[in-house]
């Protein structure tokens, strides 16, 4: 039960926090069409997060709601990977973060369609339609950024160099991942990693981008230990429910 709940939260929180970061970018896009595409992805992701959080609250059986889980948990109770909470430094950072996550989501949710958990399998099927588009968009952008002007290539390579150290946490198995995989609910992250690496190599090759030689990796989000950014995200996101705990919105 606890493992299942935490597994659900890992998935929901990745979507919720990345959606939040994207929503910060509204009205900041390089042109209108891209501003809208960005918001669209934010909307898809919050939709995924909402479905999973509501289901989590339901199986938890303590009378909580999806909103309670989003707006009333403390930082240590969020289990998203560190990558998704990284800031919108510039469009290159946004798109590299997006591509690395989209590729993970795509292969992860593709595997999750085979889950013995009917809810997870159904949400995976539903989400894949959107995630397929997300991955196509961010892959195309990575190529435009890497294979266009030298300035854009430099900026994007800088984003890759900075963000790469957060990319392996998606595939770092914790006890919950292992337990869920054994019971046929969760997916084999090694399998997902192998497909993800292939995709990353393919797109990086086309975009003239390099994987950093220093393969040092940071993890912690999946255990509730976050970067300094997370506190600010939650302070802002949870501001109204925290300040007015009795209010219904």
């Amino acid at each position, binding site marked *: 039960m606890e493992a299942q709940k935490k597994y659900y939260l890992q998935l929901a929180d990745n979507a919720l926090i990345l959606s*939040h970061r994207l*929503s*910060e970018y*509204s*009205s*900041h*896009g*390089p*042109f*209108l*069409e*891209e*501003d*809208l595409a960005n*918001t*669209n992805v*934010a*909307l898809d992701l*919050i*939709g995924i*997060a*909402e479905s999973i*959080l509501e289901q989590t609250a339901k199986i938890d059986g303590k009378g909580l709601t*999806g*909103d309670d889980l*989003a*707006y009333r948990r403390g930082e240590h109770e969020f289990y998203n990977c560190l990558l998704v909470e990284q800031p919108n430094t*510039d*469009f290159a950072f946004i798109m590299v973060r997006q591509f690395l996550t989209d590729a993970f989501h795509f292969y992860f949710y593709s595997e999750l369609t085979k889950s013995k958990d009917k809810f997870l399998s159904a949400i995976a099927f539903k989400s894949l339609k959107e995630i397929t588009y997300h991955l196509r968009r961010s892959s195309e952008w990575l*190529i*435009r*950024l890497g*294979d*266009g*002007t030298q*300035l*854009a290539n430099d*900026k994007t390579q800088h984003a890759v160099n900075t963000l790469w150290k957060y990319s392996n946490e998606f595939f770092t198995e914790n006890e919950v991942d292992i337990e869920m995989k054994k019971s046929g609910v969760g997916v084999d992250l090694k399998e997902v990693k192998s497909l993800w690496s292939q995709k990353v190599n393919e797109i990086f090759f086309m975009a003239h981008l390099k994987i950093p030689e220093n393969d040092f990796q940071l993890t912690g989000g999946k255990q509730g230990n976050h970067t300094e950014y997370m506190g600010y995200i939650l302070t*802002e*996101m949870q*501001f*109204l*429910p925290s300040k*007015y705990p*009795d*209010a*219904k*919105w």
Partner: protein
Amino acid sequence: MEIVAPSTEQLLADFESKINAEIKIEPRDWMPEEYRQNLIRQMSQHAHSEVIGMQPEGNWITRAPSLRSKKILLAKIQDEGGHGLYLYSAAETLGVSREQFIQALHEGKAKYASVFNYPALNWADMGAIGWLVDGAAITNQVSLQRTSYGPYSRAMVKICKEESFHQRQGYEIMWRMMEGTKDQQQMAQDALNRWWWPALMMFGPHDSDSPHSTLAMKWKIKRESNDQLREKFINKTIPQAELIGLKVPDQNLQLLEDETYKHGDINWDEFWAVVKGNGPCNQQRLEHHIRAHKEGAWVRETAIASAKKHNI
């Protein structure tokens, strides 16, 4: 056979007979230069308003208090941007590019709705903007569905459908807050107090002081006058406010015998000050747009460079 070009008088007569017969003017049709300029001004102002209007609401996306409200706000802001896109595209049929429209905005030559120069200070502002600002906009836009320029008219039909959702979601926020705690009720009343007058000002100066109105009415770009539309909005909105326990901040408001309302004096000094750039957020809104556009330059350049390489 000798082909004789029609005279300007004849072209104008044909144009006006189409207008009178309610036949839409299309991009390839002859039109008087003043008609074109009037449309360029109005449509670009409308497009810029949609886009700048994303900012005050964007100020609250990250603080939206529930998953549902955050989704709705994201979708609404996305709609507004989409309206901007249709309108820029429709306006481009008049021979001006989007880049030129944006340049005119940045140089202060093109305006956007002054109402977006007011700040969004609490969550109820998301309700007030939807209910009042979109409500005022839709009152105007319903009328513009019958505007004489085809591309503008068709854009309006699509936009109106979405705007009516926006207005309802705004009213729903206000209604929920008025059903809520004392703090929420105060937020809702505070938002109404701050947005009521700017919403009334959205219809523009009184008819007697509206410089662009005469020709625009004659050529059916505008179908109803500023004052007529403002009255419609007031008569529709006041009962909605009363229904949920909100008080419209107009001490001189009178209910007339025919069940319509007479509003108190609008502060036109404030209106003109904001139009001329001296509102609470004029500088902030424009600088934000300019900054985002500048920061995006390298992204647009690489997209073009990449497309050229791949012959797209």
